[in-house]
């Protein structure tokens, strides 16, 4: 028969650039009735209850907090209510500090250049991220392998948006990806795969050095 909805569960909150953030929840069984969800929150130094400012931007079962509604170093206590004709059920409270949920989008425009004795990899920070002002500091990691190889070779490049890779398999096609994370936060996804053919003579020239 028809019942009150099961309680929803808040599953994740993420900020892509330390200026806005979104949260997503998983609805429970809706009791067989049209069910409405409201997200309510309070903040550490603002006890009044506020409703989610934007249920649309981040897709279904989500709440998007724009710049005006986003503060760092403050605990948000978030609850989602599921309501239908038969009644209502609230999720467990979800505690989040935006400081610790930053997960950027991957770096962009990865370019590969075979130089004399190394491969030069260059890239740009993800879109919509302001690293110039210093509010957000990104660090990067690059992974590379010859197409035939199983294992990736990983290089942490710090804040640099370029990197010289020294030890390569001559004559083989290599695949390269880059990812980033805030100085203190979550790694982004890897960038799409970029490919480069390393010439056969690349290493041979070294042979004659001695």
């Amino acid at each position: 028969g028809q019942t009150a909805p099961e309680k929803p569960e808040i599953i994740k909150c993420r900020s892509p650039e330390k200026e806005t953030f979104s949260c997503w929840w998983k609805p429970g069984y809706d009791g067989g009735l049209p069910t409405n969800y409201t997200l309510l929150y309070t903040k550490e130094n603002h006890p009044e209850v506020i409703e989610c400012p934007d249920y649309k931007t981040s897709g279904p079962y989500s709440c998007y907090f724009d710049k005006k509604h986003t503060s760092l170093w403050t605990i948000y206590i978030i609850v989602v209510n599921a309501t239908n004709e038969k009644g209502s059920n609230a999720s467990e409270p979800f505690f989040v500090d935006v400081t610790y949920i930053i997960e950027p989008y991957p770096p962009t425009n990865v370019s590969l250049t075979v130089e004399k004795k190394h491969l030069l990899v260059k890239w740009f920070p993800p879109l919509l991220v302001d690293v110039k002002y210093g509010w957000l500091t990104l660090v990067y990691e690059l992974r590379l392998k010859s197409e035939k190889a199983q294992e990736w070779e990983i290089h942490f490049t710090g804040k640099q948006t370029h990197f010289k890779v020294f030890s390569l398999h001559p004559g083989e096609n290599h695949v390269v990806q880059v990812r980033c994370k805030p100085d203190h936060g979550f790694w982004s996804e890897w960038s799409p795969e970029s490919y480069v053919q390393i010439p056969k003579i690349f290493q041979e020239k070294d042979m004659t050095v001695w």
Partner: protein
Amino acid sequence: LPICPNGSVNCQISTGDLFDRAVKLSHYIHSLSTEIFNEFDERYAQDRGFITKSINACHTSSLNTPEDKVQAQQIQHEDLLNLVLRVLRSWNDPLVHLVSEVQGIKEAPDTILWKAIEIEDQTKRLLEGMEKIVKRVQPGDLGNEVYSLWPGPPAVQVADDDSRLFAFYNLLHCLRRDSHKIDNYLKLLKCRLIQDSSC
């Protein structure tokens, strides 16, 4: 002895270099603070609901610090520098307490003790550096108001384990938060003052 006669080359560490070192140090301190918090949380705080009690419980929450980029852009750099100094100073006593308390925690792993000592050491170093930077950026009286924002350790006779563990949890939670603020503001100030906001 000469105090850097003008004949000598670069006899003073540049402000840019001072900021570089301060930012490397603040990054290091926050990384350690995050690790010690996570380690303690995993080992001692699971399912005790400490987070609900640590709301509005940091001794530095009365300091009016910028909480988003817009507020950070609006604040004068002298004020932000002084805020960093105040937050740093307000951690002198709590860190001394932290190091002594860690030794009293049942089977506290060495890594927690080592990190507590390292954080205390490096925070003192960062404070020395910040006082130098503030003097350089804004000559004049640095002021050395003694910050008693910290109410001091909980009553020592707090017998029950839970309260003692919560007091500890809260200190590490606030340390992680404040060390992140310091790191963030310093990186921002460095970009603003040294790299003309184009980092």
